């Protein structure tokens, strides 16, 4: 069965648990960079969570996403549970859609991801409005668009270790 996605045309190596953890920590570290007042910074942790929920739904689940959301809340000084709720919902949606998403080429996958991330942000916005916050403006959603544009790049980077040949070739860098 030929698939359009070039990443699925050959068998991938199994994903390593250590690499998944490392990539999640990297996403978390990116989110904790001092983005003073820069608007449109993508939530990279959400993108990485989506990636692993789509590609490895049995290794990355709702519980992990929830805990990472709690960490984000603690580090950000946001309402405690806001990111946790949003990331849990994101993980659920990504897991349920993973078969569908993987059948599309990368740029169409990015469109799916855009909808998922924007819905996540909308959920956070609703929670904060209910808790008495103010609407921060449409620029709040720009981060999701940037994140969706980054999706193909993130896919290439995070799938690279699984595309290595099974027999390790000493002369090949990756």
């Amino acid at each position, binding site marked *: 069965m030929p698939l359009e996605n070039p990443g699925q045309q050959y068998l991938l190596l199994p994903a390593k648990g250590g690499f998944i953890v490392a990539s999640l920590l990297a996403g978390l570290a990116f989110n904790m960079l*001092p983005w003073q007042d820069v608007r449109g910074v993508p939530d990279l942790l959400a993108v990485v969570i989506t990636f692993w929920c789509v590609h490895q739904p049995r290794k990355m689940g709702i519980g992990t996403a929830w805990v990472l959301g709690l960490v984000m809340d*603690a580090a950000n*000084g946001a309402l405690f*549970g806001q990111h*946790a709720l949003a990331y*849990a919902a994101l993980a*659920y949606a990504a897991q349920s859609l993973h078969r569908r998403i993987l059948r599309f080429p990368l740029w169409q996958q990015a469109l799916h991801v855009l909808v998922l991330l924007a819905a996540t942000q909308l959920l956070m916005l609703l*929670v904060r409005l209910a808790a008495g916050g103010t609407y*921060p403006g449409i620029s709040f959603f720009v981060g999701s668009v940037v994140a969706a544009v980054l999706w193909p790049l993130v896919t290439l980077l995070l799938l690279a270790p699984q595309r290595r040949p099974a027999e390790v070739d000493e002369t090949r860098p990756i």
Partner: protein
Amino acid sequence: MEYAPPQFFHRGPAPIARLTFFALLSVLLMVLDARFRYAEPMRQLLALAVYPLQQLAIAPVSALTHSREFFATQTRLRRENNELRGEKLKDAEALLALESVRAENEQLKRLLAARERLTGDSIFAEIVYAGRDPFSRKVIIDRGGQHGIALGQPVIDAAGVIGQVTRVQPLLAEVTLVTDKDHAIPVQVVRNGLRGVAYGSGDGTTMELRHMAANAEVEKGDVLATSGIDGVYPRGLPVARVVRIERDAAYAFAKITAQPVAGTDQHRQVLVLARMDDTPTWAEESGRGARKAGKSKRPPRKTD
């Protein structure tokens, strides 16, 4: 005999069940946090756990800023030096005048048998990063509970009030800026002593002087300083400058917009002031009165 699927196919609870569980847990946490502030110990624990990662993430950025400062050109440094020298002269004059006024003030206070204003230790801190939360205006400073920061301490920079410590973690503290929507600060118009309360407007850059009568004597350009009646901010710190006044006869109140004088975007160094213990708190005062009254009224407890 039971025909259960082999362990190989076992995947735990259904995803929708998991989502429901975690969503309910999040809602519970949010309610606890927003209404009762019960989630604080757990938040502190998590924040302490990610502190090393956070420092790792910040390190390259702060190294970049510091190296940029290091390579500052000599002309700029000389110009800055000259400016500072001039400012110092100007300040010295004001300081001398202030000294005499303060001495006089202390004498008068002693005459009135008033308690002297406690000028406790202030703590120097640096802003590590601005909160990523787009719904509130907060900055994180690099001093925390370990360094003696306590809840409610006012934070200032060279120009005026920045905000107030609203959350203390062991190594970091969170400062809510005066422009935050949920932040209120009692102020006084410096020109005529008119008192009011300034709120953050929520758009991130301005403040509002609310509940001022439409004919209140406030003019564009008036400086608002802390009035000190809240027992948190010491008296006389500049807070904001009035930039716009809209007086509409249809409303009972004027819409007064002010621009904070302190620049949290330009400066990284801030000063955390000790809490002012000048004004006796209301509870203490009424408590004392109640205790006196209670003593005479309360019947002696019966012993069995």
